[in-house]
């Protein structure tokens, strides 16, 4: 590199290894004389949004115990603090994957065609609440909810419609569904096979992370133990028959949305991940045979540096545990691959256009943290499902980040920063403390049953709500800089006709199919539910191919497993 400016290393000719002790003292006393700013938003300058203490300045002595080889190493190498690939975004940008689904399968299919035509790389299915909870659109529990938060998928007929005209071998699909994940996967496989695409050609991810449902999102069906058996069956099935499929997307996103801190998101998510790894090992699978297909899903919240450090810490913790504790030998088993979504809970209904800016910062944090794929929220998602216009802006936000800012040109550009490395270390340390606490309960399921996670999250979210109330923290447009008259923005509404139409559709599916075949496949499924040595997935595919509806399949399984009820704490 050419010499930038021709002058001595320092003005007084000191050696490069001087200790800066004079400068340090000078700074320290000047810093002590400083007066902390007052007024709204000044009550939290000494901590992150998650209440991790912050100093005004980080310096070399903060990294005294830092070991470059042990803690940082190189990108693409253990412990992957700097990223899982040697050249990161120079070789390949992250996947821009916008989550979409609303109304019925036909409407959502049209949105998918729109997104693919505008340069999106993969699809991401949002299901409606009845589908997520295992109810058909004509069930009493579904009233008012059909097609509202996502697309209604009752039977294979809807899944076929959803991917109409889309080459399922060419795209990857992410499906955000947990309780009935095994059924949705069966429907996806069946829909593809009806088009002549073999299951082994299908690439994508299904969330299937049931543990975080009990912890945060609350979309469960069965009690934890049978749910874990279903997940192990899916892991085994995908290992053997769907080599390109990611079996579980272990999710911190919803834990954060439920009000957790960044450290809680980090620790609880990884604890869930380790619980799946342990379940797979316990079921007799070699860890390296299934671990490379596990992926993660994190939130990117508004505290910029804390988020970057969270992603870096997550990779390092995961690599260490996978290699040291679980004995994984394949480097792919050590790599934490993750999807990121910007924080829905950081978006505001007030002055919604401001969310465009929040999303851009959060997306930047995700990229500086080394994400593999990204969903940027639309500005109006806090009010309703996003309009086409706002979805386009959200996607353009990622494209500007990828193609204009040049932040993609250098791997882990913040690595080595005294602050970034200190905060990464601190988050790892605090996460390890949580692992110890969970261990004391006897594991994740026991801690769920004791209400541990739920309590920790409720405490954190109440602390945060209080800090807004006292204005120690500011949300622009909400508790400061409010505007009297809010301008109305266009909202996408899902009419009641969708509910009626979908209810009619599922009824006509029931009328037109071979009922004897449905009964037989459901009966075989129930027998398999009782037999831990059988795998449920082939039976589920049979049920789906017979056009048994999701609600019917769930009911059959509930007869064996029962339904989970939570002891509610606040």
């Amino acid at each position, binding site marked *: 590199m050419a010499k930038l400016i021709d002058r001595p290393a320092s003005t007084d000719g000191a050696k490069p290894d001087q200790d800066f002790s004079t400068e340090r003292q000078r700074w320290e006393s000047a810093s002590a004389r400083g007066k902390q700013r007052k007024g709204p938003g000044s009550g939290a300058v000494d901590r992150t949004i998650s209440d991790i203490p912050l100093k005004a300045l980080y310096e070399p002595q903060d990294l005294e115990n830092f070991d470059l080889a042990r803690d940082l190493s190189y990108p693409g190498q253990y412990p992957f603090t700097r990223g899982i690939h040697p050249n990161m975004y120079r070789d390949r940008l992250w996947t821009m994957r916008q989550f979409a689904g609303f109304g019925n399968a036909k409407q959502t299919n049209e949105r998918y065609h729109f997104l693919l035509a505008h340069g999106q790389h993969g699809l991401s299915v949002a299901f409606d609440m009845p589908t*997520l909870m295992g109810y058909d659109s004509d069930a009493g529990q579904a009233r008012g*909810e059909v097609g509202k938060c996502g697309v209604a998928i009752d039977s294979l007929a809807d899944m076929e419609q959803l991917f109409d005209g889309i080459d399922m071998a060419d795209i990857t699909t992410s499906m955000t569904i947990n309780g009935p994940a095994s059924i949705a996967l069966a429907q996806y496989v069946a829909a593809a096979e009806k088009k002549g695409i073999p299951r082994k050609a299908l690439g994508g991810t299904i969330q299937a992370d049931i543990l975080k449902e009990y912890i945060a999102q609350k*979309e469960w069906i069965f009690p934890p133990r049978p749910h874990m058996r279903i997940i192990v069956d899916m892991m085994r099935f995908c290992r053997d028959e769907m080599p390109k499929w990611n079996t579980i997307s272990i999710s911190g996103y919803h834990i954060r949305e439920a009000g957790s801190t960044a450290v809680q998101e980090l620790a609880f998510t990884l604890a869930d991940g380790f619980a799946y790894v342990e379940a797979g090992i316990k079921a007799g699978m070699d860890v390296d045979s299934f671990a490379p297909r596990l992926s993660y899903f994190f939130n990117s919240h508004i505290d910029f540096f804390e988020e970057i450090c969270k992603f870096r810490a997550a990779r390092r913790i995961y690599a260490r545990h996978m290699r040291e504790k679980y004995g994984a030998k394949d480097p792919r088993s050590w790599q934490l691959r993750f999807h990121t979504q910007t924080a829905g809970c950081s978006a505001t*209904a007030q002055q919604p256009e401001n969310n465009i800016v929040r999303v851009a910062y959060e997306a930047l944090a995700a990229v500086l943290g080394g994400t593999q794929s990204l969903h940027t929220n639309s500005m109006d998602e806090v009010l*309703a499902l996003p309009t086409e216009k706002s979805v386009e802006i959200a996607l353009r936000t990622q494209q500007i980040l990828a193609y204009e800012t040049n932040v993609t040109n250098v791997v882990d550009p913040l690595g080595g920063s005294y602050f970034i490395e200190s905060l990464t270390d601190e988050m790892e340390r605090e996460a390890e403390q949580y692992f110890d606490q969970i261990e004391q309960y006897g594991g994740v399921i026991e801690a769920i049953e004791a209400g541990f996670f739920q309590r920790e999250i409720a405490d954190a979210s109440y602390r945060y709500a209080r800090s807004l109330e006292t204005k120690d923290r500011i949300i622009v447009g909400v508790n400061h800089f409010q505007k009297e008259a*809010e301008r109305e923005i266009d909202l996408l509404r899902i009419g009641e006709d969708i509910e009626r139409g979908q209810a009619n559709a599922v009824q006509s599916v029931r009328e037109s199919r071979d009922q004897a075949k449905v009964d037989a496949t459901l009966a075989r499924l129930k027998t398999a539910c009782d037999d831990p040595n059988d795998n449920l997935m082939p039976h589920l595919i049979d049920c789906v191919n017979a056009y048994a509806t999701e609600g019917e399949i769930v009911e059959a399984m509930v007869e064996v497993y029962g339904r989970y009820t*939570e002891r*509610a704490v606040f």
Partner: protein
Amino acid sequence: MPRPLRIIVAKAGLDGHDRGAKVIARALRDAGMEVIYTGLFQTPEQIVQTAIQEDADGIGLSILSGAHMTLFPLVVEQLKAQGAGDIVFFGGGTIPPDDVAELKRLGVQEIFTPGAPLSEIIEFVKRECGARVA
């Protein structure tokens, strides 16, 4: 001295978003009220039954799933049907302004949207429900 106010904080339908409901439950409890949280997935019938059994002064219903135009009116209907129309009924969630106006017209006393200060909600409950115990 009047007895403490007794408030039901409720979640209905299939909506699992309980962050806001729990924060409100705690804030009302910290403000000296007795709070009963129903837990998730209650039907409008169950919510009103709970309120009657607990002799509640108010029901606060939280909905973030988009089903508010169905579930709020069903609770209003149940309050009337079960002869409990004097219980103060309010709610919160991600509810667009037009829907807020319509729900108020249908008999929901107040709707708080995201960002509403806790102090405002506490004041509302004290004022409206307080009339019952005065």
